[in-house]
């Protein structure tokens, strides 16, 4: 029995400090992105979620250049991006898609410049990879407190706006008729999305941020129609994916090829992708019977 346990949890998994930090931060981020993500999926704003993560990375590369903490870079740039999208934003989904695209394009252009300057002035060629791909194992434990505070803010906004947001998501016209300030509620939601995505992109990388925002929420919404319950299910799926991903990545140092650990983001993304595909099969079987 203990041999089997040892084969699954390689030596040192439970005593390793970076693993503890990775699991703690991953859990916090999974819970926050699950709550925000359910609305992102219901409102059809996956593209905005993905774009804000990339914009956050642009801010991160600027912060790297100026030698200020990455937290400010990610958060400010993500908020600025959300504001720009709201300003250009047109009510129709197609116009929104375009507004997101234009802002993202400009942001990626800036990222190209900042990362170029980073590698020129700081002589660290790894900046591109670090900023864009991130790593759960590279988080310093001092970032946990500000990350938790920002996450709590995003969560508080979503919970405060829960009813009007739900109503204007499901039926904007009816919400407007009942006196809900639809535009304002939408802007408040964008604020929560920008905060959640910024902290996710900073701690776990832009790829994983999109994966955790969209994947678990979309999977949960296929299993249950109730938004509140979907948030719970999404949080559980997200936490499970992060924990399993960290475990596999830790074990992978002992896999071939030698001396190369497999990245956490690969494992977590794969687990999330598979769970979404599987939930589609479950939902279809349920629909048929």
């Amino acid at each position, binding site marked *: 029995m203990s041999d089997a346990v040892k084969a699954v949890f390689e030596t040192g998994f439970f005593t390793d400090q970076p693993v503890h930090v990775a699991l703690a931060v991953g859990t916090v981020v999974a819970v926050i992105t699950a709550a925000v993500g359910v609305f992102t999926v219901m409102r059809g704003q996956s593209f905005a979620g993905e774009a804000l993560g990339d914009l956050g990375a642009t801010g991160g590369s600027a912060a790297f250049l100026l030698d200020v903490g990455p937290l400010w870079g990610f958060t400010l740039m993500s908020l600025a991006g959300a504001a720009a999208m709201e300003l*250009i934003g047109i009510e129709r989904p197609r116009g929104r898609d375009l507004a997101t695209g234009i802002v993202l*394009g400009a942001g990626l252009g800036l990222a*190209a410049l900042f990362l170029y300057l980073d*590698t020129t002035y700081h002589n660290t060629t790894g900046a591109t990879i670090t900023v864009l791909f991130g790593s759960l194992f590279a988080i310093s434990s001092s970032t946990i407190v500000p990350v938790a505070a920002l996450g709590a803010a995003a969560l508080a906004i979503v919970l405060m706006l829960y009813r009007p947001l739900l109503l204007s998501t499901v039926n904007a016209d009816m919400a407007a008729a009942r006196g809900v300030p639809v535009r304002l509620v939408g802007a408040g939601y964008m604020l929560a999305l920008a905060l959640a995505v910024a902290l996710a992109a900073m701690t776990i990388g832009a790829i994983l941020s999109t994966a955790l925002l969209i994947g678990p929420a979309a999977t949960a919404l296929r299993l249950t129609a109730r938004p509140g319950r979907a948030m719970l299910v999404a949080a559980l799926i997200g936490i499970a994916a992060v924990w399993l991903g960290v475990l596999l990545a830790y074990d992978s140092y002992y896999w071939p090829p030698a001396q190369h650990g497999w990245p956490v983001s690969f494992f977590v*993304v794969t687990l999330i992708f598979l769970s979404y595909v599987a939930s589609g099969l479950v939902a279809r079987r349920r629909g048929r019977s």
Partner: protein
Amino acid sequence: MFSGFMVNTWTVASIVAVIAGLVGFFVVLRGSAFVAHAVPSGSFAGAAGASLVGVNVFVGLGVFSLLGALSIGVLGRRGRHDVGTALSLVMMLGLGALFLALSDEYAQQAYSLLFGEVLGVSSNELAPTAGLALVCVLVIALLYRPLTLSSVLGEVGEARGVSRWRMELCFLVLVALASTMTVPVVGTLLIFSLMVGAPAAARSFTANPLLALALSVALALAIVWAAIAASYTTNYPVGFFVGTISAATYALGRVWAAAHRRRSASP
């Protein structure tokens, strides 16, 4: 700037701009900016994988952009389209992260794959780019009418026997083809701003579809030429100029459209 080794760059970049302008017209018409972002960005994984196993970069890019496009098509048909796009994108990027971690020589190469490299275009990239461009132009010429109809009025197209699902697949393959040829010059992240900025600006200048298509190509060419010239003289990355000039062009289009509307409104 026009010396011998830059001739390839100018040629390849011009071909890429024409294709981006053409395909981008349909991207904007269909409101598919997310797809135009996801397929090229995800194809980055193909480039990383190709250098890992040691095959031609074009092969890796082609395989992964087609896989990504098909995955978007299938997942998007069975569920929410934007969710399918997002998850296809992150899955491909996750694979890219894996390939990068497994290979040793990466940081600088990854940067130029993502953001483009003006000076790196060699003459053996010319033939595959031109070939792919020719295929793209042929497909667009053949499908122009049904694809436009299905993009603007899906239901009407369906009634006239134009399958929306089939047109969606054709469109996705077009985006995949366009993504495959982008890496030598603009990079996987910035072909996207070319495919969205130029045609979106063109659409705010004119409502006539054929005119908008031509203008979209012309604007894309102008953006790419300006970006290369600026990058050559300042040494800053070409992606920076492509991204910002595209956004500025779009802003100009919006201002022009707003001014035009006001003028036609007042007697």
